Every structure is written in C-alpha cells, then in structure tokens.
C-alpha cells in the first residue's frame, strides 16, 4: 500500500526526472488539469499549458540540466523539495542554483506549485 508520504515523494521524483529528461508528456502526467505555478521572480501565476510550453521551449537553452540534492519533506496534501539545479551551458560552463518548490497534491496529481529561487544568480549563467 502506498502511503501519502511515499506517493508524494514518488510524484516529486517523477516530476524532476521528467523535467531533467525533457519529457514534457511525463511532466504533464504529474499535473492536474487545473494546475497552476506561481514563481517568486515574476510574482505571477502560470497555467499548466503555459508552464508546459515554457518547459518545452527551455529544453535547448543548456547542454544539460540536472536537479540534484533533492531534500523532500511531505505533508498531508503536498510536499516541499529543496534542490540544486546544476546547469552545463553550451559553452561548457557549470552553474549551480539553489531552489525550493512547494507543491499541493490531490488524487496523485500536482494542483499547485510555488517556486522560490534567487534570480540575482541568473547573471552567472
């Protein structure tokens, strides 16, 4: 039997593994139809469709991007994951960015994402 804790952890890994592979269909399977993503850099909420489009167009921005050091804590209806995005640019430069994602989950799908990072670090990419 899957507990909420293991279910949320698995969902979190499925999301990040799919983003890492650039597998947008697999990302979509993690999302509820009414999923929204709020981003601390813009202060705006993005729909599921807009997020999937942004992910699809972002896959070629870097040579490789991995989501490492995932520290996941789960609660009844969601999870928080603290992680490091490691980027290898097309020029071969390596950049690391620390970020945090809070997710709300319903019926095994993500309904809301809140992403926090420091855009002041973007310049070092």
């Amino acid at each position, binding site marked *: 039997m899957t507990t909420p804790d293991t279910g949320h952890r698995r969902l979190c890994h499925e999301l990040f593994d799919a983003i890492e592979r650039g597998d947008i269909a697999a990302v979509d399977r993690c999302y509820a139809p009414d999923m929204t993503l709020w981003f*601390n850099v813009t202060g705006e909420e993005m729909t599921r469709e807009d997020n999937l489009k942004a992910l699809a167009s972002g896959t070629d921005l870097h040579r490789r991007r991995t989501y490492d050091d995932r520290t996941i*804590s789960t609660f009844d209806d969601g999870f*928080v994951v*603290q992680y490091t995005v490691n980027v290898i640019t097309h020029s071969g430069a390596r950049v690391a960015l*620390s*970020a*945090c994602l809070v997710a709300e989950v319903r019926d095994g799908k993500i309904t809301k994402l*809140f992403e*926090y*990072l420091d855009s002041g670090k973007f310049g070092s990419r």
Partner: protein
Amino acid sequence: MDEYEIRELCEKFFDAYENRRVDLLDGIYSDDCVIWHNVFGRETTRDENLAALPDSYKGQRRRTYNDRTINTFHDGFVIQYSLDGVQHTGHRGSLWICIVATCRDGKITRIDEYMDSSKFAAWAGRTSGGAS
C-alpha cells in the same frame, strides 16, 4: 513535537521577528541552530544571526510577516509568506519568501531561507522596478 506544537513554534518565531524581540528568538533557536540563505549560499550560526538582527531592523520603520501559509511535516515546517516593510521614507515594499525549518524539542534547529535578491532594491525603495 506534534503538528500543533510545530505550528505554534513557527508563529512564535515570526511574531518575535516582527516585534524585534531578539531575546525571544534566542530561546526559539536551539544551541546548534544554523541558518542558511540561498542569496548568500552559506550558513550562519545562531549567534551570528542574533548579533546581526538589531542592525538589520534599522532600515525599516516597520516590518510585518503576513499571509503565512504553513505546512508541517514530522520534524519541521515550511512557511510561505510576504515580508511587508515600511521604510523610514514611508515607502512600502513586499518580498515573497519561503522558509523550510527543522525542529527538535520545542526549538528550531535549522532554517533554510529562499528569496529573490533582485527584489531587494525595489523593496527598499531604491528603484521603481520589481516588487513594490
């Protein structure tokens, strides 16, 4: 600690910050508490954090920690909130911040803080762009 104790500790922590009660914060941090900030990418000790607080308060007339959305897990909490500041000039600004904390025996043992440094200037009223 159960969920209610963790929530209460979280609220106490932010109330103490808001009311500039460094003495109360001292009792909320465990002796080995460390605070990590994504902006600086390094850990500070509880003593370094407490020593820096009086100076950090000088910039604003008032600071409140609002819209606190708290979720708890077995050994800690995550809180999403707005830090609303009123500068001495009267300028008002907001920062959106997320903190993940671990707790033990009624104290906070670790804080990881995530915010966007590109909003700092607008928050302090030094530019017209970004969060305000």
